[in-house]
């Protein structure tokens, strides 16, 4: 942040966006894979694709806990 937002609407928007960003960071912090990376507990097993894939042939990479973002203006 290098510029200060001066209009009331702009400030309200900035405050809401700050909270969204802080919540997004917390959501990331709740992802087990990222927690293991952050805490130096990332192991060879974490490289295994099967450990992180959804069952029944779903090839999309999933995380133990899905990311959810809520925006409350």
């Amino acid at each position, binding site marked *: *942040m290098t510029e*200060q*937002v*001066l209009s*009331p609407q*702009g*400030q309200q928007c*900035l*405050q809401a966006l*700050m*909270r969204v960003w*802080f919540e997004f*960071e*917390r*959501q*990331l*912090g*709740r992802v087990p894979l990222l*927690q293991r990376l*952050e*805490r*130096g*507990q990332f192991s060879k097993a974490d490289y295994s694709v099967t450990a992180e894939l959804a069952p029944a042939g779903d090839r999309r990479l999933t995380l133990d806990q899905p990311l959810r973002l809520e925006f409350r203006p």
Partner: protein
Amino acid sequence: MSVFITSSGHFLPGPPISNAEMEPLLGLVHGKPSRLKRRILQSNGIHTRHYAIDANHNTTISNAGMAAGAAEHCLKDSFLGKRQIKMLSAATSQGDIVLPGFGSMLQAELGLSDIELHSSHGICSSSMMALKAAFTNLLAGEQPNALVVASELTSRLFKASRYEAAGSALDFNAEFLRWMLSDGAGALLLEAQPRGRCFRIDWLRSFSHTDAYPVCMSVGYPGDNPQNRSWQDYATYAEAEAAGALLIRQDVRLLENIVKLGVDGYLRLISEGRVQPAKVDHVLCHYSSHYFRGKIFDMMQRAGVGIAEHKWYSNLYSRGNTGCASIFIMLDEFRRSQHYQNGDTILCMVPESGRFNNAYMQLTVVEA
């Protein structure tokens, strides 16, 4: 029903200790002066603090003894005697003994009879949790009054011999708090009725984020700890100490999170309508270091929810960072030394870095 802070007190052991006097008192680790001390002291801005140990590393007063001193000071200025106290709610990060709870030891030290007891264990925000327990107890009509006491005696962890027992290498995270924390106790008396000029507690809220962040400040883990081994997992306490698991540590890499999480809680309270920045007359924020004051202030200012600098009060620089006791010691000194008027709003903030629990409280000055 409202709850009022009708008295307060503090206890700071021994004389003020200057920056130059710190290391001779705590001791040279392996006979060498610290290379980090100057940098950390410059950053935290603390000029003097108090210790409950002397230069020979004898404990001059126990943690429970300091807490009792603050409680006595609080009661001396109050309308109540010890026999009228109905609840004791106590907080510390580390009591003199592991068990029983700190509140039990403090009750005995104070000689209070037949009270309801609560012990709050944690780091800086544990005093606010103890205060919340007492506040809600009074709000529920369970008790007419409560003595809330917070006390810290961390200097015992900072003796040179502690670091020497943990081996030759002294890492930054283990040394950091040696130049940050010191000893002291604060106490507040809560009553369900106002007396003279006092502070009404409008609300007290906290937001904890331990599910999203790792441990940032701890006693019980060794420095390098991929197996999540705690001090109790070693065969002997001597092994735990040799592994550095009994040192107090701060993960400095994570510490910056305190700024945004502190502001996040403040923004939440604004959106809930609890805080109206323009109506706040005084801010008492327990920032652990002057470095963070600027960061918190700047982020609030840029978000358009800043509070004018002249409204901020802190005695961190002269009384030191006394962990959970800080906010009570600050409020006590504010009450005794600062100018305020009936109707003034006081916002108290305690952002805790232990594992990121942030507590906030709003007070209003009233007169019975």
